[in-house]
């Protein structure tokens, strides 16, 4: 098992903030909108440097999505910022009609996604957002794994034309991918080549998958670990190549089992290469208040859960 060095502990939302500022320096068409969460979204540096390109919308997310659509019509590249819950479920029809169906170049940037939002509890811990967004035709859905990758993804989506949902989180999290990496939308990243089981992980759970890989290695199991930062469009070739080799699959995500990465991978496999799949995800329930790590343990999204899922998958191999 390849070694991954933790270079820092940083929140992915700060990667977004840094990426947005850099994207704005590269391209004057980049504008930002925020619904009263500028500090939480780490958009304050952008706001300070480009006050005339920052739009405070107040606590009115539906209007923010419409404003973003209009700014895109005017040739701007709008980045909206609010929590993942208010970026998706609250404004689904606005995104559907004014952005996705109208194919507007809007970047919907969503922080505090998943259980690791922590103490605020289930009202804010959306676990359905990947499913909501990936169902929209033409929507790109990205969930990077650490600070460096979130920054790179933010820069990449500024240069891509079309609607994008970029999902990131609140807590400090291990940084292990390279600084100044090039982010290729839709390209799965091979983190560790293995022979016995394929583990496809996204977002914060990529780090859990790496830790699981180390434990599995100690048990003599060779896990292939692949970072699926882009859930849509999914890198089907990477999924199929790996599954063809290992003949069993684990998916891991901080999301509902319904509608998430696991569903997307299971669909590719069912249609092309039926393969046993075990899913590490939230099992059709809401979250609750607690510390991020406590919640990941309670809802079975921890390292040990990825290990157990890998062992179950291997046992099901045909």
């Amino acid at each position, binding site marked *: 098992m390849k070694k991954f060095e933790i270079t820092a502990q940083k929140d992915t939302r700060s990667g977004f903030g840094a990426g947005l500022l850099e994207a704005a320096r590269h391209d004057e068409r980049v504008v930002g909108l925020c619904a009263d969460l500028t500090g939480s979204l780490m958009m304050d540096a952008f706001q300070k440097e480009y006050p005339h390109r920052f739009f405070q919308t107040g606590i009115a997310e539906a209007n923010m999505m*419409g404003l973003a659509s209009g700014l895109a019509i005017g040739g*701007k590249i709008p980045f909206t910022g609010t929590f993942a819950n208010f970026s998706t479920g609250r404004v689904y029809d606005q995104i559907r009609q004014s952005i996705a*169906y109208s194919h507007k170049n809007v970047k919907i940037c969503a922080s505090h996604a998943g259980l690791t939002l922590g103490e605020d509890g289930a009202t804010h811990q959306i676990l359905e957002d990947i499913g909501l967004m990936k169902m929209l035709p033409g929507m790109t859905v990205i969930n990077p794994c650490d600070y460096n990758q979130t920054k790179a993804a933010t820069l990449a989506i500024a240069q891509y034309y079309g609607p994008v949902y970029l999902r990131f989180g609140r807590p400090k999290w291990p940084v292990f991918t390279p600084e100044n990496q090039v982010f290729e939308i839709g390209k799965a990243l091979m983190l560790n080549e293995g022979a016995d089981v394929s583990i496809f992980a996204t977002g914060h759970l990529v780090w859990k998958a790496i830790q699981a890989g180390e434990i599995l290695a100690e048990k003599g199991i060779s896990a292939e670990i692949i970072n699926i930062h882009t859930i849509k469009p999914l890198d089907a070739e990477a999924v199929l190549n790996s599954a063809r080799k290992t003949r069993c699959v684990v998916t891991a995500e901080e999301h509902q089992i319904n509608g998430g990465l696991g569903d997307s991978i299971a669909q590719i496999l069912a249609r092309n290469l039926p393969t046993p799949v075990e899913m590490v995800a939230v099992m059709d329930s809401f979250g609750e208040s607690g510390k991020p790590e406590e919640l990941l343990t309670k809802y079975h999204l921890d390292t040990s859960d990825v290990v157990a899922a890998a062992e179950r998958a291997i046992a099901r191999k045909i």
Partner: protein
Amino acid sequence: MDSTQLQVMATQVRRDILRQVYNVQSGHPGGSLGLADYFTALFFHFMKHNPSAFSMEANHEDVFILSNGHVSPVYYSVLARSGYFPVSELNTFRLINSRLQGHPATHEGLPGIRVATGSLGQGLSVAAGIALSKKLNKDDRTIYVVTGDGELQEGQIWEAVMYAAHNKLDNMLVAVDFNGQQIDGSIADIMGFDEIGSKFASFGWEVMYMDGNNMDEILTTVPQALSKLGHGKPVVIIMKTEMGQGVDFMMGTHAWHGKAPNAEQFEKAMAQLPETELGDF
């Protein structure tokens, strides 16, 4: 165009509305007929736009956004008649493989449409975003918006109303199509407003009133409204219209909100709208 020419065009637009809806036995004739005069005045008199070379960004052009997208027949008629696409394409309204979707959309690439509308309450926000981009671009052209009156029941409208006033979007002229009707009946019965204009005024908008079915009044009121732009406030015209205007049996009722005439009704309606030299599609 002068008032007489505009009134002829408005009659032709009404004939187009009825024919589109009749052809497919589907669509929304009532509100469309009520808006024919204002749409005609905007597209053939007031707006500076470039129909022969449609540009999404509309730099240095006026922009029109229709928020209550179900009145697509009036929108398609003025777009075609002003040159965005061939008038003959009105024959494809609501048919499969058409660019003229039931509600306006960009998806099929119909020139003149900048955003899909139909799910109500969203167009004003989009228009406000275009207003922001024009200000950023130091482009002093105007964003014209039409909303329904029943549509004002949507909460997002008031988010946009508050935003536009707070941010001094004084390059937007909104017309509320105040015909007093919605699908299930009169607005007064369903969820009424005591007085729409005062609500906008209390949010900080400049408010004007107009008979939207009187071309001469439109031609005097809109320039007054435009002269109020650029002074720190968005402007709204509460525009009294009659649903079904121009066809006696379609007026004074919500029955024709989303219903097509049968053959006999179509002939009877067309007989009330004299043929013009512009010709039917």
